[in-house]
């Protein structure tokens, strides 16, 4: 029980200190999990983080589950995840309540209209960064363009694009393997 509580508190601390998520989290994880608590080695953490990036869901949650399960099995995984999401629940709930109360003020509306432009640019930057890692040849470029246009122009759930692209990855690589033989 004491160990579970420790997992919860440590990951709650990591959650508070993660600003922006994803990559920003790795140095904080290293300090808390590897150096302070010795729950995993440097190599294990990098492995967990890499797998957390390419499995479904939020990277922070995936990594937390990984470290937690290594420490205390399934219960540990669940506890660490609850820890990492706990600060968000508290902070966002309070902020959301406040923002709803002030949303009618002109300056708040103007501020958010300015912020929206900034958010567009931030998403664009994220896409450009991801492009370098994900579009590695002609075929991946074709998949990117098809999904981009398909999701913009058709009213189809994004789930289908995810399923079909996974399948086409397997098929394309399979054909490539056969051609090589």
């Amino acid at each position, binding site marked *: 029980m004491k160990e579970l509580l420790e997992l919860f508190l440590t990951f709650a601390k990591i959650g508070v200190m993660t600003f922006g998520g994803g990559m920003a989290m790795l140095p904080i994880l290293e300090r808390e999990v590897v150096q302070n608590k010795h729950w995993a080695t440097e190599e294990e953490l990098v492995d967990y983080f890499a797998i957390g990036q390419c499995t479904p869901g939020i990277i922070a949650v995936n990594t937390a589950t990984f470290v937690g399960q290594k420490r205390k099995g399934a219960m540990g995984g669940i506890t660490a995840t609850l820890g990492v999401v706990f600060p968000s629940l508290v902070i966002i709930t309070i902020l959301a309540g406040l923002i709803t109360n002030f949303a009618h003020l002109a300056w708040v509306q103007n501020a*958010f209209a300015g912020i929206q432009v900034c958010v567009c640019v931030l998403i664009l930057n994220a896409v450009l960064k991801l492009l370098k890692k994900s579009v590695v040849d002609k075929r991946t470029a074709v998949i990117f363009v098809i999904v981009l246009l398909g999701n913009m122009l058709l009213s189809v759930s994004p789930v289908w694009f995810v399923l079909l692209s996974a399948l086409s990855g397997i098929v394309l690589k399979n054909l490539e393997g056969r051609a090589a033989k």
Partner: protein
Amino acid sequence: MTLYLRLYWEFFKTGLFAIGGGMATLPFLKDIGATTGWFSQTDLMNMLAVSESTPGPVGINMATYVGYTVGGVPGAIVATIGEVTPSIIVILIVAAMLAKFRDSQYVANAFYGLRPASTGLIGAACAGVMLQVIAGITSASQEDSILMKFSWDGAISWRGIILALVLLVFTRYIKKTKDLHPIVFIGVSAVIGVVFHFAGV
């Protein structure tokens, strides 16, 4: 009760199919807004801005915020739990066969296709919000067609275009500023929005 079940299910799907972290949930959240009518695309933009500028992983902040908007505090909890459930299940399975997963050719091949698709989905969400914020063009699904319907409210935001270009330069090309935390740019944009009456009020 059915509202919370639906909320849980929608976020379960988001957690299961969004691959590549917080930003990858955006196209799914957009889809939830469009199919349920719980929130507009503009609401979603504001929620994303708040999620980027508060502590905690962006993806979790967004789930909490959307959940709160739909169903108050219980909604926030239900949405967040829904989004992390698939992660917990998948990671516990992967952890049990870590070596196999890491060396699996099938997994590697699937991700060869998944990565550009995930980028494409985020790119589409990005293009959608840009068109709306800067050019006043919105898209909506139609009842009897698979094609999206685009409509233009005639308002091109020149102020928005200029701000976007300036931000693009500062976040990508100027060495001194490009590694600054997003919250700096969000803060500056908020001030510019107030000073230049971006919402027109």
